């Protein structure tokens, strides 16, 4: 759709957009009375309805509405005594100048796009400088840091923090519950891998589970095998 054909139904005007434009330019409608916000809303609604975005037409609309907004904002501001009043032709000239200026950069943009496409097959190296160029050479090095800074950093590392108050933290993993989980699993399977079964648990849960396992072992309910140090642990139900 051409911008001109946008149908408007405003308080002060009902009809196509280009008619509104002309009436404003000929001062048959006072721009002060036109709610330009509603024009924009009408346009957006129209776009939503049709679901298609004609970039050319949209750009044209935006340039025109922006020009109208600027004209209106001038009308709203107090006028200087000696400033000549904007006649319809002045406004049209203003609008025309605006469109010409825009077209110039639109065409310059097309030229840039061509340049860019022509250069795109050329690629540039982007690699860090060799290490030797990134640091001071030993010969050129001058004292730049104070050794005391190292002493101070070390002193800070020697500071032992006060023991934190843990009275408000309650253990969230109970040994009883982990014992129950282990017995449940052993009820289903005669043997299973600790790692596979509990890989997704957090470290605390894993640790308490391991502790629960010791308890099962002590009570003779299960044994475990770990053929190599740090290797997988196999849990076996005691017969």
């Amino acid at each position, binding site marked *: 759709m051409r911008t001109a054909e946008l149908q408007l139904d405003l308080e002060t005007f009902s009809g196509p957009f280009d008619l509104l434009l*002309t009436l404003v330019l000929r001062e048959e409608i006072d721009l002060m009375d036109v709610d330009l916000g509603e024009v924009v809303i009408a346009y957006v609604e129209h776009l939503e309805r049709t679901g298609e975005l004609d970039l050319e037409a949209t750009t044209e609309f935006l340039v025109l509405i*922006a020009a109208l907004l600027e004209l209106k904002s001038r009308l709203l501001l107090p006028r200087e005594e000696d400033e000549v009043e904007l006649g319809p032709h002045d406004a049209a000239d203003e609008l025309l100048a605006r469109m010409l200026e825009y077209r*110039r950069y639109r065409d310059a943009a097309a030229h*840039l796009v061509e340049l*860019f496409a022509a250069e795109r097959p050329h*690629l*540039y*190296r982007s690699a860090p400088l060799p290490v030797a160029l990134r640091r001071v050479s030993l010969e050129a090095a001058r004292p730049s840091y104070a050794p005391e800074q190292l002493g101070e950093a070390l002193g800070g590392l020697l500071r032992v923090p006060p023991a934190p108050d843990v009275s408000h933290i309650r253990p969230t993993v109970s040994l009883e519950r982990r014992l129950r989980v282990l017995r449940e699993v052993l009820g289903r399977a005669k043997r299973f891998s600790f790692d596979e079964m509990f890989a997704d648990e957090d470290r605390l849960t894993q640790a308490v589970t391991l502790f629960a396992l010791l308890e099962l072992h002590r009570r003779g309910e299960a044994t475990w095998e770990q053929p190599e140090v740090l290797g997988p642990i196999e849990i076996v139900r005691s017969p």
Partner: protein
Amino acid sequence: MTTAVELARIVEALLFLSPEPVSVAELAEACESSEAQVQSAVDVLADELAEGRRGVVLKEAAGGLTLATDPVAETPARRLLARPRTPPLTQAQAETLAIVAYLQPVSRPEIARIRGVSSESAVATLTERGLIEESGRSRFGAVIYRTTPLFEKLFGLRGLDQLPDPSRFDPTPEVEGELRERLLRAGEQRAES
């Protein structure tokens, strides 16, 4: 004394290492040679690295010299480096870039005024792609933009003066007259009907 051929080797190495284009003056200073000597070396190098001869070519960009790969290697290079083709510029980005290139330094409100739309996202993308950069603030506190050396490099420009005269893009008087008439008449007819 360093011969032009030996100086050409050094210049090639410097251009290989430098991430930015390097001017003849900078090369001369680094090599402790005169600009004339470096220019002779550059001529030797330009000949050796003429288009179609090797895998890299010598290019002039952003007021200096730089090395780039020959287009013959583009497809294998994108495969090796898993680098997708840089996306082309959108219409909004190209228009914004054209405005910055010709009017720099230029503020964002000025860009928006010319384009008739807020150009925030185009400005952000161009900044992110390193084609434009902030160059301070206007009297009114708006951020102002200019193009970067990368822009000149990627668009094959030796300098900004290589941009075509913008009057080249002005419409002919006929087109201008037609636009003007359309503007005044379109509604008149409607008003009468």
